[in-house]
């Protein structure tokens, strides 16, 4: 038994000529909160996709809860939960049905499923809205529902990809205090990506700064400041990654929206 929840060694992902993730190595201990901090397009989401079996790496080794996401997909999948960067709920189903769907896919048996759904929906304050279609929910409510859903099968590692994007400070605070509680009480390992430095500094025990697909530094926020001889994580971050503004490739949905705008002439 190792005490590592995630172990990554020389992981690389290439898309044609473009190297999205370039030979990265890091470890996350069991029960730790670990942040992947980096500017847009640094390779954060690509790394999460590889760890969660959605993408297969070009080279390198990785383990999640002792399972290789490439060759032991199902065991790995059962052992983690994930909240994606973009919503991944079915808008035409109710909150309860989305939860139920997840529970059945993860083979959580009937009575246990029902009691956990109730418990989780109450925690994220959505039990009253359980029979409403998700398309009537606000961004914050959807995010809360996704967190509840990701925890339904009691994962040992919880991945959160840019979980607070588009959330107001109230929702953000509430979400983090809930996740931190969970981390303490259930010993769930949290791995999240962000480009907000305050967030990484406040929530994470250890941080890896990633840029252009490479991990440029990792450690506690204090260690990072010392390494770069700066006074704050923000300065450390900027000194490591430079001040140039990054453009992220537009996502499919954005392309779709753009086309609709072109088509209808609306702005």
């Amino acid at each position, binding site marked *: 038994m190792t005490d590592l929840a995630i172990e990554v060694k020389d992981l690389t992902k290439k898309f044609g000529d473009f190297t999205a993730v370039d030979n990265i190595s890091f470890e996350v201990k069991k029960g730790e909160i670990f942040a992947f901090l980096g500017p847009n397009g640094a390779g954060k989401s690509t790394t999460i996709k590889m760890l969660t079996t959605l993408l297969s790496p070009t080279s390198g080794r990785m383990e999640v809860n002792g399972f290789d996401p490439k060759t032991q997909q199902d065991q790995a999948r059962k052992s983690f939960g994930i909240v994606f960067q973009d919503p991944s709920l079915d808008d035409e189903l109710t909150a309860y*049905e989305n939860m139920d769907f997840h529970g059945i896919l993860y083979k959580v048996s009937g009575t246990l499923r029902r009691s956990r759904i109730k418990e989780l929906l109450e925690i994220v304050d959505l039990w009253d809205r359980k029979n409403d279609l998700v398309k009537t929910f606000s961004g914050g409510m959807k995010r809360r529902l996704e967190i509840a859903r990701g925890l339904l099968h009691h994962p040992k590692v919880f991945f959160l990809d840019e979980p607070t994007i588009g959330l107001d400070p109230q929702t953000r605070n509430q979400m983090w205090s809930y996740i931190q509680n969970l981390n303490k009480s259930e010993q769930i390992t949290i791995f999240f990506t962000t480009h907000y430095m305050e967030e990484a500094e406040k929530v994470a025990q250890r941080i890896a700064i990633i840029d252009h697909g490479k991990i440029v530094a990792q450690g506690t926020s204090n260690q990072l400041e010392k390494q770069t001889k700066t006074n704050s994580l923000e300065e450390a971050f900027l000194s490591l990654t430079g001040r140039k503004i990054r453009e992220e490739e537009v996502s499919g949905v954005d392309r779709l929206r753009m086309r609709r705008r072109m088509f209808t002439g609306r702005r």
Partner: protein
Amino acid sequence: MSTIYILWLRQIKRYLRSKSRIIGSLGQPLLFLVALGFGFGPIFQKAGGGNYIEFLGPGVIAQGILFTAIFSGIELIWDRQFGFLKETLVAPVSRLEIMIGRTLGGATIATIQGVIVLILTLLVGFRPNNLWAVPGAIFIMFLIALLFTALGTAIASTLEDFQGFQLIMNFLVMPLFFLSGALFPLQSAPPFLQTISKVNPLSFGIDGLRQTLTGSSHFGLSLDLTVLGVLTAILFVLGSYLFSKIQI
């Protein structure tokens, strides 16, 4: 098993909740029945073809199934764009189960749509030989539905967004329908049209429906069923393969 069931159930729930989609997709078959059925009916009769509504009915039923089935398959792109596909792909279930559940769900919806169109045809004067033919016809409808849902899924697995959708409508779905013997009898069509219709799976579906409902057939029921069955199996395997290759 539960995975297949829940994916099937999801499709059915989504379908029943989109009333506008159900009603909207009935517009076209109704238009064909009224405009073509009544418009060409007298000429068809004079040319010795008999009752045109009797001929057209199975063709329009198959059209309703074709459109709904292809669209159900293509809906995969929607799930991909709006993220839900990721939720199913990170779950500890095999992609084959996901594919089976989705396809059965889409095929069930398309079959229901076919039955609704069958009821519409009854309203405009279509009469099956006898009512006992209906269960057999529904079985053939389900085969047609399965075939084209699998085709739609296979195509959608290779597409990133809806850009190719018009292409599929105009160069696949429309030709499948118009070159199938849905609207005109194949035996009196020019040879090149007959040849085209012989490589069109929908021709065999419509022929099978016509055989069970009205007793007239061009290819013969056993050939119809063989073609539909074999092709469905092939497309299903192909669709599963392409689906298993999806990376997000």
